[in-house]
């Protein structure tokens, strides 16, 4: 079947053959990966922002993901698995989404000129989505790579050190802006693309969705910057002890007592 398809395409009869079902699947997968990533990012933001509650809270969450509370011991490799999954989603998503990018300068200028002329919000939003998506290629890569390779270096001090002494904060500012804009617009687009919240009055629905979208973006950016500030603060304070992992107060006391 596949090879006959190739043959058909090879001799220029592709147009006359039954159409492939792949475009349908790819469209679905593009949306699906986008959705999962966007939901993951919500969760992710809540996890990392536990630092705003307390160092212990952040530590607890980290250890939770490393299976500490199930097995009594940390397995950072578990985080690596999650990271690997997310990276796979990212790659698939990006691979599918770039099909929509302008493929050459001419297409880019056409779209850009069109957007300028129309001053139409949803069109402009797509441009920003594509632009932030493009940026994500570069700014997400180092972050997920370090998470993949050093899952054990997650924790209030470890993260703070990376953010400040490790000079990740500029990257994170960009990453945060890009991912929140991109994900927010993406979710809105998913809703209209599939007509998820179809109501009796589509115009009103869309208006509400748009408001919700902006509210979410603002909320997550605020949360994100507060979180980033918290890490920076910890990082600055912890700079002299760079590299020392965080151990919660409760654990510090008890083991000492036991060892004695």
């Amino acid at each position, binding site marked *: 079947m596949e090879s006959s398809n190739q043959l058909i395409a090879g001799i220029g009869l592709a147009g006359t053959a039954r159409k492939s079902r792949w475009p349908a699947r790819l469209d679905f997968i593009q949306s699906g990966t986008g959705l999962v990533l966007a939901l993951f990012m919500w969760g992710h933001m809540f996890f990392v922002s536990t630092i705003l509650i307390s160092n212990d809270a952040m530590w607890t969450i980290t250890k939770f993901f490393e299976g500490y509370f199930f097995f009594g011991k940390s397995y950072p490799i578990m985080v690596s698995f999650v990271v690997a999954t997310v990276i796979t989603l990212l790659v698939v998503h990006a691979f599918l989404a770039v099909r929509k990018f302008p493929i050459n300068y001419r297409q880019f200028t056409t779209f850009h000129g069109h957007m300028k002329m129309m001053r139409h919000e*949803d069109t402009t939003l797509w441009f920003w989505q594509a632009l932030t998506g493009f940026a994500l290629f570069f700014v997400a890569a180092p972050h997920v790579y370090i998470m993949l390779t050093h899952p054990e270096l997650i924790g209030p001090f470890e993260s703070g050190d990376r953010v400040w002494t490790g000079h990740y904060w500029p990257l994170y500012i960009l990453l945060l802006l890009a991912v929140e804009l991109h994900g927010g617009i993406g979710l809105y687009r998913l809703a209209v693309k599939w007509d998820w919240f179809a109501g009796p009055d589509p115009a009103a629905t869309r208006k509400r969705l748009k408001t919700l979208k902006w509210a979410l973006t603002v909320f997550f950016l605020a949360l994100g910057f507060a979180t980033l500030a918290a890490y920076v603060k910890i990082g600055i304070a912890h700079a002299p002890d760079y590299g020392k992992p965080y151990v919660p107060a409760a654990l510090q006391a008890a083991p000492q007592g036991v060892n004695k």
Partner: protein
Amino acid sequence: MSDANSKIIPIAKAGNGGDGGSAAHRQLKISVLRYNPQEPSQPPRMQTYPLEEADGMTLFIALNEIREKQDPSLQFDFVCRAGICGSCAMVINGRPTLACRTLTKSLGAEFTLAPLPFFELIGDLSVNTGKWMRGMSERLGGWLHMKEPNPDLRRAEQKMDPDLADKIYELDRCVECGCCVAACGTARMRKDFVGAVGLNRVARFRLDPRDARTDDDYYEVIGDDDGVFGCMSLLACHDVCPKDLPLATQIAFVRRKMVSLGWS
């Protein structure tokens, strides 16, 4: 209700514009993007025409007056001049819309007119939407494919649910003005994209129980990136459609149907 005749109702001015009433009228400055592909030596340029506004002046009246009094070479298309035929779509201050039903008073004193992008330019504000629409229709099979090609015309017509008939008409209201395609960033980037008007056509026939085609057949014509999967949900189509067609919901609907075939 009888006080209605004491109400001051703004009234459209007929014919070829002109004096209007006693009130001072604005001096309009209408900039038109001019280019005639038949005379490529003259590059595209903006030309500004001064014009005194009249009561109830539409762009139909304004442009005709310019052509009669100032510039006989100016090209544009009007047919019904009543907003029902779809001939006069152009880009007014950056937005594609029907010119004949645009009142100058809804615009600033200075505004710009340009031809619809995307379509083949005939000259100045005139574009060949008709040619593209016919091509689109041929490509999609944009006509009802009868289940029973030779019905007995002496017999009563097949019954149809009144609500369904209304729904079909709702989608049939498209006037093929081309605004949706000209407003679509996807179409601008990718020449082969069927556009909202095409997807709406498919939605319309899909809805019609008299049509013999199945989703598999529709998939053959729109199941790719030049079809429904090419649409990036920019929704400009929906926002500019002068007939207020429910394009956003229709495209979403078609997309869901076509995607569901992907896994069957």
